[in-house]
């Protein structure tokens, strides 16, 4: 073993485990940042135009007398959406767990391209810096929504300064980092599986992360092309997406951007959720002490959804005036997704059936994904249907729905993953009592927030409005908006507890045994700290990832490295 300097070991490391942790800390920072912005948004929606109180850092709005002005509000929801999707969920689920788990779970010494991996993180880091810097621009950050539709996001659209260009640049850089990661993950899974680790023996977490990477590799280039064209429009005066008064000569087509955006944007939804589906499928098996029900069917369903997700983007655009034929086709294709989704959903329940359920914190978080993803998935039906979407499109209903699928499912999946793999990453256990308090507090308040967002949306409240009291038909919703805000603030408080638990456990948590959850997969086979290179000798894999309660073994689990002899 050669010794490495601090810079090579902890900063510009090429060890996938270190890079995974870097992504984790990076993602948690942005999760807190974006979460805080959500609190400010909720404050404004409950008490429009009233000064932000000191305990929500009212001093940030000193320039406007403590009040969030309409521009500030638009910046908040733009940055909240952008940050949560690209700089919080992406690095935590894909960056951190993709990096940490893939080589360990397939029995590889590292990623296929460790240096590319390091460059990927630092490109990601740079993109985050560009995004953060945009908050300090004299005219403020971007405020055209996370979708950044032109012509609003172009000069002449009415948003002053360079905020929109910084937004485009940072998301493009983020995309470059994601593409590097995606290529790396795909090749690693294809080339570096240990002997005996066939595709059908990979943990479902690896399946989810691998499928996500395939979607990333195909569709991030699409949005990157769109964003580069947008950037040219913003900075060099080209007119790819300009029409109307702002167009000189022929102009271009604003609708083209929407198509390009959603060709990426809909797969992006699955890019974010697929790792969670995989992780949930694995953890349900571990904490039920029972093999994952219908392992092959689950992975085939996830693969089917990957294919379907790429041909349904039009359901984001029913109200743009698309041709009836297209509208019908997109509706039909979208609804097809419910077949594979409900199949693997029933498989999750099948795993619990006749299991022996252990309600450790990771299991609590995992089981709550069944609840929130169930609600999120089912409420998607309203938006997939052309007619009900005509009413619900661009209302708070959509906001509540996608917070269930993305925010709630992905957060609980992330919490589950962190709680489960914390001992592998840091050698200590996350404090179970604090985790349980955090779980219940989050589960209850989160449902109060996101469900009631759908309620006010069904009652007509449209999205992205600074002050709902402008409209008479929204007056009856004022109390509900206040209620949602208080629920959201309590939800925020519980996340402070989580942060405390995370830091406290990092320093003072109970030192973990090698395999505290008695899991079968390869990442639990070596002592902490896992050395650079992971395995002393590349292991031989004998069976699938879920050999729990096999009658031919003495204990209720058999590591993948142990051959089971049938009696």
């Amino acid at each position, binding site marked *: 073993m050669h010794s490495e300097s601090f810079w090579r070991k902890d900063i510009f490391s090429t060890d996938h485990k270190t890079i995974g942790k870097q992504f984790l800390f990076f993602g948690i920072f942005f999760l807190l940042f974006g979460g805080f912005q959500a609190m400010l948004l909720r404050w404004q929606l409950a008490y429009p135009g009233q000064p932000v109180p000191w305990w929500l850092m009212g001093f940030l709005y000193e320039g406007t007398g403590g009040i969030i*002005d309409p521009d500030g509000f638009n910046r908040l929801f733009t940055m909240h959406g952008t940050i949560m999707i690209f700089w919080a969920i992406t690095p935590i689920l894909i960056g951190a767990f993709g990096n940490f788990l893939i080589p360990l779970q397939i029995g590889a010494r590292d990623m296929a391209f460790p240096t590319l991996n390091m460059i990927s993180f630092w490109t990601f880091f740079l993109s985050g810096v560009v995004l953060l810097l945009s908050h300090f621009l004299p005219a403020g950050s971007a405020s*055209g929504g996370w979708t950044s*539709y032109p*012509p609003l996001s172009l000069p*002449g*659209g*009415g*948003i002053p300064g360079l905020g929109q260009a910084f937004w485009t640049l940072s998301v493009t850089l983020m995309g470059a980092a994601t593409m590097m990661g995606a290529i790396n993950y795909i090749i690693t899974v294809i080339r570096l599986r240990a002997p005996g680790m066939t595709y059908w023996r990979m943990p479902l977490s690896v399946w989810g992360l691998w499928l996500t990477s395939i979607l990333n590799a195909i569709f991030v280039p699409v949005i990157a092309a769109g964003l580069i064209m947008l950037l040219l429009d913003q900075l060099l005066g080209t007119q790819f997406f300009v*029409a*109307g*008064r*702002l*167009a000189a000569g022929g102009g271009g087509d*604003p609708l083209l951007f929407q198509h390009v955006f959603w060709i990426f944007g809909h797969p992006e939804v699955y890019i974010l959720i697929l790792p969670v589906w995989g992780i949930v499928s694995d953890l349900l098996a571990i904490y*039920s002490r*029972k093999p994952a029900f*219908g392992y*092959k*069917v689950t992975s085939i369903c996830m693969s089917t959804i990957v294919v379907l997700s790429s041909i349904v983007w039009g359901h984001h655009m029913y109200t743009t*005036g698309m041709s*009836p034929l297209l509208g*019908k086709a997109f509706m039909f294709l979208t*609804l097809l997704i*419910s077949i594979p989704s*409900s*199949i693997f959903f*029933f498989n999750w*329940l*099948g*795993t*619990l*059936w*006749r299991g*022996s*359920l252990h*309600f450790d914190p990771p299991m609590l978080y995992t*089981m709550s994904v069944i609840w929130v993803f169930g609600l999120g998935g089912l409420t998607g*039906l*309203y938006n997939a249907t*052309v*007619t*009900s979407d*005509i*009413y619900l499109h*661009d*209302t708070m209903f959509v906001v509540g729905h996608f917070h269930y699928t993305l925010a709630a499912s992905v957060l609980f999946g992330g919490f589950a993953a962190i709680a489960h793999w914390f001992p592998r990453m840091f050698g200590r256990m996350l404090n179970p009592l604090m985790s349980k308090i955090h779980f219940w507090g989050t589960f209850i308040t989160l449902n109060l927030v996101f469900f009631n967002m759908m309620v*006010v949306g*069904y*009652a*007509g409240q*449209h999205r*992205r*409005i*600074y002050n*709902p009291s*402008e409209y008479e*038909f929204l007056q009856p919703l004022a109390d509900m908006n206040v209620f949602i805000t208080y629920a959201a603030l309590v939800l925020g408080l519980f996340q402070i507890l989580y942060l405390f638990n995370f830091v406290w456990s990092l320093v003072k948590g109970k030192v973990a045994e090698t395999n505290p959850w008695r899991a079968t997969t390869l990442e639990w086979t070596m002592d902490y700290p896992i050395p650079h290179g992971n395995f002393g000798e590349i292991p031989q894999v004998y069976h699938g990832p879920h050999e*729990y*309660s*096999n009658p031919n073994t003495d204990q209720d689990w058999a590591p993948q490295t142990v051959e089971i002899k049938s009696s």
Partner: protein
Amino acid sequence: MGKIKKLLPGGIWFLDPPKDISLDGYRIDKVIQYTDFVITLYFAIVVIALVFFIWRYNSRKNPKASYDHGNQKKHLIMTVAMGLLVFFSIDVVIETMSFKDLKEAFWNFPKGKDVVRIEVMPQQYAWNFRYAGEDELFGTDDDIVPSQNIMHIPVNTPIVIQLTTYDVIHSFYLPNFRIKQDATPGMVTAMWFQAMETGQYEIACAELCGNSHFKMKGYLTVESEEDFDSWLGSLEPEGTKDELDDWGAEEVEGVPEFWAWAWKELK
């Protein structure tokens, strides 16, 4: 489809949507109510299963899990059957309802004499409306353009609107009619609706269009045919007015292209 009784105001969503005063809004409410009903049913099944499993199969009560990969033929048949059951009981039904409504109502534009045609041109941050006037042609001297944000329509009459805009994307949202339609620069979009009750209603912009998006509000008056005709008659036709009043100099440049366009015939 039987009528689904609502247990709560607003069904499972607690709060009522704005009052529906349109001819076809009930169709949208019906699709939503059917979806409410089936998703409640399926979600209830999931929750009951979860609660039962937690009670019956927790490790204290059931210390030994059964060894079952769920990979036998019967399991596959069962889960696929469940998937298909969901698809046929939810998706196929709402798809059929929705297609029927689109064919019969929302995409079935009314033709003929009794139709009132209106051109809508939103801008940051106001609504412009244009009525064709006597000659029923747009872009002529007898066009009638009310003050910004003011729209009147006769009750029990099909209204067809065409929209475009010259700055950024907006969306014409009528909560009391359950509909919205985007207005995008460079293209003309259309929708139609019919009011069944007179009264004052609100128009909102549903697509983010800038910092005053939230107060881009229009006022819709639904009135009797006679009241509507006398209101229209009381307004000065466009040709006799100084356009700069409404517009400001720079907007006038774009007039023929983005405003008062020749009515697009629908196929």
